[in-house]
């Protein structure tokens, strides 16, 4: 395979789940690339398949079809079948730190587990030193926190422990699955600061999954918008907020509650929110958004739109753009 500059390439990735109601199409043929050291944002509402995408990349689910290429190696299999040195290079921070940390373990146990599994410390002393370093890195004084258990910590502190665990093996890529949505705003700001500092210091790539557009605006360099298992728009963050083109993106942006007048001006005026997300078992034919789209016409109901490049690096999957 030829060398290229992208750290992670996702090609036609599809994940379907069989349930007693039918096949749920959680992720349907999506493509994107993540470059080293960048934050790639994946935005969508609940049920759009953004978390499933993150899980499939991490190997928590086996992809139904499509490819995941990480550091030029094909890893489109379950984590169990991936080589250990590649697993060490990827990590994930989950949404709810209360359920992603084992309540029976101390902070030290939690953070040192990945180090032990991957044999990254020769002896007890080295292990202790490394755990202290990691806690220091996420701004938890090791002396105070080492021997406490998750239930004794606040939400922000718990998430900091989850981050320390994620960076323990020195990964180059981390999936952040709504890392701050369970936290209060003042705590969210603190955790985001830590994440951004770590990214600079350790040259990390992030796949940042969120439903919060205001948050996304402040962290990511490129954004992809997902709706019902499909990506509908790609753009560099600054362009995206100046010139959102897909009607769904406009609806999403116009729904964001804001505080200031400058922000209010950024919101598109033409589209107001209506309708609800259809079921992922029987997604609408053609463009999946046509049931809620104010501009939908005949072609949208039958033919699925393909990606059109409207300006450099800005891609939209909408029939309005193809004309």
């Amino acid at each position, binding site marked *: 395979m030829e060398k290229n500059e992208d750290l992670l390439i996702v090609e036609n990735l599809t994940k379907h789940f069989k349930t007693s109601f039918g096949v749920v199409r959680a992720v349907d043929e999506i493509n994107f690339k993540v470059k080293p050291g960048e934050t790639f944002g994946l935005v969508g509402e609940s049920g759009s398949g953004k978390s499933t995408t993150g899980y499939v990349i991490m190997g928590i689910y086996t992809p139904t079809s499509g490819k995941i290429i990480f550091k030029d190696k094909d890893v489109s299999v379950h984590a169990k079948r991936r080589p250990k040195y590649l697993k060490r290079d990827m990590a994930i921070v989950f949404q709810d730190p209360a359920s992603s940390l084992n309540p029976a373990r101390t902070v030290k146990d939690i953070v040192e587990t990945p180090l032990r599994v991957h044999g990254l410390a020769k002896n007890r002393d080295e292990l202790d030193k490394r755990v202290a370093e990691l806690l220091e890195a996420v701004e938890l004084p090791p002396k105070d926190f080492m021997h406490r258990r998750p239930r004794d910590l606040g939400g922000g502190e718990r998430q900091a422990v989850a981050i320390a665990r994620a960076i323990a093996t020195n990964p180059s890529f981390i999936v952040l699955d709504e890392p701050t949505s369970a936290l209060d705003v003042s705590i969210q700001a603190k955790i985001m600061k830590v994440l951004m500092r770590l990214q600079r210091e350790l040259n990390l790539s992030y796949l940042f999954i969120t439903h919060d557009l205001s948050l996304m605006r402040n962290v990511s360099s490129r954004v992809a918008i997902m709706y019902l298992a499909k990506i509908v728009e790609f753009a560099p963050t600054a362009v995206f907020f100046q010139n959102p083109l897909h009607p769904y993106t406009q609806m999403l942006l116009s729904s964001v509650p804001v505080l200031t007048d400058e*922000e209010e001006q950024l919101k598109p005026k033409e589209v107001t*929110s209506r309708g609800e997300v259809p079921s992922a078992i029987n997604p609408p034919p053609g463009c999946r958004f046509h049931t809620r789209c104010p501009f939908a016409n005949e072609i949208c109901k039958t033919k699925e739109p393909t990606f059109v490049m409207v300006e450099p690096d800005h891609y939209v999957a909408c029939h309005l753009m193809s004309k």
Partner: protein
Amino acid sequence: MEPLLEVKDLRIGFKTYMGKLKVLNGVNLTVHQGEKVGIIGESGCGKTTTMRAILRILATNAVIDGGDIQFRGNDVLKMDKKELTEMRRKSITMIFQDPTAALNPVFKVGDLLADVIKFSGSHDSGKHSKKELREKSIEALKEVALPDPERVLDSYPFQLSGGMRQRICIAMSLSTAKDLLIADEPTTNLDVTIQDQVLRLMKNLVEKKNLSVILISHALGTVSGTVDTVYVMYAGNMIEAAETKELFSNPLHPYTKGLLKSVPKLTGAGFSEGIRGRIADYINPPQGCRFHPRCDSAFEICRKENPQFLEVDANNHKVACWLYSKR
């Protein structure tokens, strides 16, 4: 004009095995007829406790240590069972945070709605035929813009989506005439596009019926577009109150300032430092102002005495902070 609801210096604690949680530490709140009031604050600051106290639906281990709640000039804390039922049926209604938990899963939506209408007593005779109840239910569902109300009435709550469930909760609380609507984080569990729809709907209905509203939220943006006056709570204290525009453009209390700065902006201004530390422990709350351990401008008196909630300028801007008190 006499206010519709007035809460004065309300203090509430909870008895637990670890000791007594001193949660509310002097809450003041005034709601006038037709006024829309927002309360913001982070999780655990006592927003919901205050609302539950107004309806007297606090948990059984709650202790009311002092204070006064006046609704239309009646003392809520001294009401007997009959008066309370009357008030809950006719005057105050509440929308809860989680519509899934608020709707009984073993009854159809139609039965739930019919019960509310039947017991609200807003109809003179008090007796309704089934047909009448059903018509009124359909009307209520139409009002909240639910498509196909006939089918919704015959569905169980779990067969509907989160947005639809919350609309049903709104329909239940607004189907009969009321004076005050308490909405406790009504859109926290919903997606942004649905949140936008629900907030707009609520605002329209409330304005149409000239209701007073208390909207509680931890998301500052949802409050700013909906209400006239905003109160800020921190660790069981009301710390600031002002007209919505004034509060967001000219915050006075150090906590409000920190909170506003922490909100990520669509304009991409980056992040502030957040507020250091975490919310006060209620078993041993800090002496004096409960915010002082996290406050950068704290001085001597902040550690000793809790500041009073006072007006600081002519615009009815109130704040509880020693920086603004003349002492």
